[in-house]
């Protein structure tokens, strides 16, 4: 294998678990992003693997469907020589009624060093983290947090924009139910960006903007004004059941007010980035021409996801050693 020495020192990572971005310091964020740069370099090699995590067992425990997050963690672990075991709720003893606590204890007994967990219920990774000595990485929990998504998002933004201090980021869509919006908000705040959360009145939080100590966050229902001069526009996935539960009148109505289309994008700063955490509903959150257009970094987000997750696993495993 290629050079195993990776420059950032995992010893400066002090956390047992990575559950959200809200308590990450600027230094911790910088450490992850700097490590991710080294990992991106590894990924660019002809032989894009190292053996740093040989002997480390990573279990991905997914109670909810996922394509990119699960695959991305698996590729990340394997790229560093970890043994990666993938478990999904369907087809495991979870279907037989096993509790989360028992499942996590079982994985610890089997020898899991790091458990990457996706769950439809907010706070489930916090419970897992309390239950086990294994490191727990939140791969997305309910409407709460998705820290590695937020970290890969800011990694992608920094690649294009450099320092994010003072940069204007607009997140549009179902903010209220979005773990991606929350985790992005905390990390963007920490890095000094100005964040606007835009969406239909029924899908906007009432208190999150005020919750940030930095206070550089606002919410608005007026996406057209919010997008003026934006450096980044991130559209979120809208769950189709929001219509059935009466939160929005129709997807058509949503598109009218909140789809990121070419007319709206033209109001943003020239060269503004278009982002989406995926999976997209084609033709709903982002107009197809914009998603496939020059401003879109959606595919880069996915590629960067591997590097950022390598960084996270590397730092967590360092804590394990």
């Amino acid at each position, binding site marked *: 294998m290629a050079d195993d020495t990776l420059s950032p020192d995992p010893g400066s990572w002090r956390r047992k678990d990575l559950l959200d971005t809200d308590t990450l310091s600027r230094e911790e964020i910088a450490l992850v992003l700097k490590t991710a740069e080294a990992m991106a370099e590894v990924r660019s090699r002809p032989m894009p693997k190292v053996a740093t995590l040989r002997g480390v067992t990573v279990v991905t425990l997914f109670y909810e469907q996922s394509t990119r997050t699960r695959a991305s963690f698996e590729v990340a672990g394997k790229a560093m020589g970890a043994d990666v075991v993938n478990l999904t709720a369907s087809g495991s003893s979870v279907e037989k009624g096993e509790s989360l606590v028992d499942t996590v204890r079982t994985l610890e007994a089997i020898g899991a060093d790091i458990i990457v967990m996706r769950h439809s219920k907010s706070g489930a990774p*916090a419970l897992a983290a309390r239950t086990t000595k294994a490191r727990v990485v939140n791969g997305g929990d309910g409407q*709460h947090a998705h820290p590695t998504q937020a970290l890969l998002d800011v990694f992608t933004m920094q690649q294009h924009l450099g320092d994010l201090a003072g940069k204007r980021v607009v997140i549009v869509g179902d903010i*209220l139910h979005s773990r991606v919006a929350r985790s992005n908000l905390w990390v963007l705040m920490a890095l000094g960006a100005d964040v606007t959360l835009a969406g239909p009145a029924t899908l906007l939080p009432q208190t999150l903007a005020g919750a940030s100590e930095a206070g550089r966050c606002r919410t608005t229902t007026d996406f057209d004004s919010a997008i003026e001069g934006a450096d980044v526009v991130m559209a979120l996935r809208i769950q189709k059941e929001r219509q059935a539960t009466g939160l929005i009148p129709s997807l058509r109505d949503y598109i009218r007010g909140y789809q990121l289309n070419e007319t709206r994008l033209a109001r943003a700063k020239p060269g503004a980035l278009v982002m989406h955490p995926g999976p997209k509903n084609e033709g709903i959150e982002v107009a197809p021409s914009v998603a496939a257009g020059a401003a879109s970094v959606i595919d880069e987000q996915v590629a960067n996801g591997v590097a950022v997750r390598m960084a996270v696993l590397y730092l967590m495993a360092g804590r394990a050693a």
Partner: protein
Amino acid sequence: MSELLIRGGRVLVPARGIDALLDVRARDGVVTEIGAALEPAGGRVIDAEGCIVTAGFVDLHAHLREPGFEQKGTIATETEAALRGGFTTICAMPNTEPAPDSAPVLEALVERLARDARVRVFPIGSVTRRRAGKELSEIAELAAGGCVAISDDGNPVADGRLMRNALALASAAGMVLSEHCDDPELNDGGVINEGRVSERLGLAGQPAAAEVAAIARNIALCDATGARLHIAHVTTARGIELVAGAKARGLPVTCEVTPSHLFLTEDAVAGPGPEPAYDTNARVNPPLRTEMDRLALVHALNEGTIDAIATDHAPHAIEDKLCEFDYAAPGIACFETAAGTLLTQVARGELQLSRVIEALTSGPVLAWGLDSREKGLGSIEPGGVADIVVLEPGREWTVDAAAMASKGKNTPLQGATLTGRVRVVVVGGEVRWESEESDG
């Protein structure tokens, strides 16, 4: 039979205007004498110097879990917990399996209570069959069988027409209807108060408006029928405002508040640490609310708007709480911490002692007319039943769930230091519980 003398305590009986250092004598289960420097007459003498002596507490809202959910609690374990908490009379909510919705189920429950209960227990019947909110229970029969009230407990009676009829029938049968005021559609799967904490933690919220709207509807139905309405566990500032307004108009409305909602806020779910704890022991329905709501309840208790402090004691098994927050059963095991949190709030100067004692004793008795069932309940008066509690107001102690008598160890107060505890509990003239001797 037995004689008992409780000497030197601060006897506090707000309903009778008594607040003085006095002695209380009980004989053969009833209070015989209240006075200064009473002489021992051969029976047990309890030195209550430095303590508060009051009537046994009366709880309008408790869950004993039996029959049907004995893994969470039984009549024996939960009435023992009540006893240790100073509650000598409790009203048992009907969310059992089966629910007391008819005479045969009620009779079986009354038999079990007679056999196992460590304190007085009055059953509450269900408003509707199986608490399903569709057809009324046989209300008059439940009254005849000993129910003091009817309630569908955690299932609010959603159908306004059914509620109106239930109110009228219950009142005619001499019972109160105790209603969990809540709009299930507005709540829509919510698991904590909607607001700052729910948004931060990504948990579905229960808006205050769901409680306020239901209180408003039920007060309107009380107005329409003239029937007695009891509003269970009010938790919102706007809700208690509506109750105060209804009372000012002379409507026969009473209400209760829980010690948990007086003491804690939604922040208990997140916990004290930097990362949210998602403490399932702080999940309760109705949810812990904001500090603004909590202060409104404190104010309303001190003002006299709140008739009763009711525990909503709700024991759960370990597995009901050791799980994802959304899956956790709502409820707090409250009997054994209630006096502690309330006296702590008195010590902080937040709550008035006399109002707390009133809301634990004569307030609930008056609200539901319970003195017609047992003379002197909620009071200390000559000729009345000798249910008496001795409290040590200054005593500090630490909550230890494992040491609680309740099967439910589900308290969000685990490890908290409280000021004030229950020292002696007398039921029917007999000392039934004493905490280990105080060294003070």
